[in-house]
C-alpha cells in the first residue's frame, strides 16, 4: 500500500478538520432530544447489521455457556447415579448381614384403584384393578407410601383382574388422597400405586380416581 505523499496539511485539510471539529462541538452542545434522534437513526441504519451480528454472537456464546453448564449438571447426575448403585449394594449387604429380606420395592406390582360404584362404600373399601392374575390373594396387605392402609378381603373369581381392599380405620375418611400400594406376602407381591381421591360434598361423599397416570402393573 502506497503511503500518501509526505507533506503537512494543506488549506483544504485544515478546513475539513475545522469543519469536523465544529460539527463535533455542535453535536456535543445539541439538545438531548436531537442527540437521541441522531443516535437512534445511526443505530437503525449504519449500525443495524453490525449490532445484529453482535447480538447473534453474544446469544451464541450464552447458548454455548449454558450447554457447558448443562453438561456439568448431567455429569454430576451421572456421578450421583454411580453413588446410588454403590449405596444400593451396601444396603443389600447390610440387609443380608441383618437377615432382612429384600425391600418391598423389589417385589411388587402396581395397580389402579377403580371407582367403587356405591356411595359410602369407599369409606371402608376400594376396588383394585389387580386380581388373581397378578397373584393377589385374600388377606394380602395393602400398603401406600405412608404404610399399611388396608388388606385384601375378596379376590374376584370371574374377573381375575379385580380384588377388593378393606381400608384400615385410619384411612376411611373423606379428603383422602394416596398412592395406594397392594403387597402380597411371600414370594409374589403386589403393589398398587395410583392416585386416589375421596371427596365429600355437602355431606354426601363422592369418590374419584384421579387418573393422571396410566395403570402400572408389574411384577418382580
Amino acid at each position, binding site marked *: *500500500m502506497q*503511503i500518501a505523499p509526505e507533506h*503537512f*496539511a494543506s488549506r483544504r*485539510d485544515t478546513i475539513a478538520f475545522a469543519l*469536523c471539529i465544529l460539527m463535533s462541538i455542535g*453535536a456535543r452542545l445539541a439538545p438531548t432530544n436531537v442527540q437521541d434522534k441522531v443516535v437512534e437513526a445511526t443505530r437503525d441504519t*449504519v449500525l443495524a447489521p453490525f449490532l445484529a451480528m453482535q447480538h447473534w454472537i453474544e446469544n451464541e456464546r450464552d447458548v454455548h455457556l449454558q450447554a457447558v453448564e448443562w453438561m456439568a449438571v448431567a455429569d454430576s447426575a451421572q456421578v450421583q447415579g454411580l453413588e446410588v448403585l454403590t449405596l444400593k449394594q451396601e444396603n443389600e449387604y447390610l440387609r443380608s448381614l441383618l437377615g432382612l429380606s429384600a425391600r418391598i420395592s423389589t417385589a411388587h406390582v402396581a395397580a389402579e384403584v377403580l371407582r367403587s360404584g356405591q356411595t359410602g362404600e369407599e369409606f371402608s373399601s376400594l376396588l383394585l384393578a389387580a386380581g388373581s392374575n397378578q397373584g393377589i390373594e385374600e388377606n394380602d396387605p395393602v400398603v401406600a407410601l405412608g404404610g399399611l392402609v388396608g388388606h385384601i378381603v375378596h379376590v374376584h373369581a370371574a374377573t381375575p383382574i379385580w380384588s377388593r381392599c378393606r381400608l384400615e380405620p385410619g384411612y376411611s375418611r373423606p379428603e383422602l388422597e394416596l398412592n395406594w400400594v397392594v403387597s402380597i406376602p411371600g414370594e409374589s407381591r403386589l403393589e398398587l400405586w395410583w392416585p386416589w381421591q375421596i371427596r365429600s360434598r355437602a355431606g354426601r361423599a363422592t369418590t374419584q380416581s384421579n387418573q393422571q397416570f396410566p395403570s402400572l402393573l408389574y411384577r418382580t
Partner: protein
Amino acid sequence: MRFVREHWRLGAVLLLLLVLQFILRPLLGDARIAPDFLFLALMVFAVRARPGQGAVAGFLVGLLTDALFPAAFGAGALAHTAVGYFAAWGKAVFFADNLFVNAAFFFLGSWIRDFLVLLFGQHMSGTALYWQLGYLSLLKALTTAVAGIVILLIFRRWLDIRIRQ
C-alpha cells in the same frame, strides 16, 4: 490498476476491523480494556491518507462510537477527529510504514483519544477519572496496539509494512 487494487485491499482490511469490533470484541472479556478495532481501522486509514481525510474519517468513526455509547454525545466525534487528523499529519514526521511506529501510533492514539473524550465529555471526575486514564485507558491502549501489530503482521504485504528498517 495497482492503485485500485491497493485501495480494495485497504478497504477489505478496514471492513474486517469493523466486523471484528462487533464479532470478536464482545468475546474478549472486559470491554473497558478490550482492543478497539474501530479505532485501529481509523489509525490504519489515517496514516495512509491526507490529514483532511483522516479528520473526516475520525469524525465518522467518532459518531459511530457516540451512537454506541451516547454518554457524552459529540465528545467521541471530536476526539476521533483530532486523533485522525494528527495521525495523518504525523506520517510526515515519522515512518508510517514501520511496524513499531504504527504500534506506537496505536498506543498513543488510543490513550489520547480516551483523554480527549473524557476532557470534552465531562462525564467522569475524581478518582474514577484518574483510574480510567491511569489504568484502564493504558491497558486498552496496550491491547489495541498489540491487536494492531497482529493485524499489520497478517496483512503486511497488503499494507506495505516493514518489519525491519
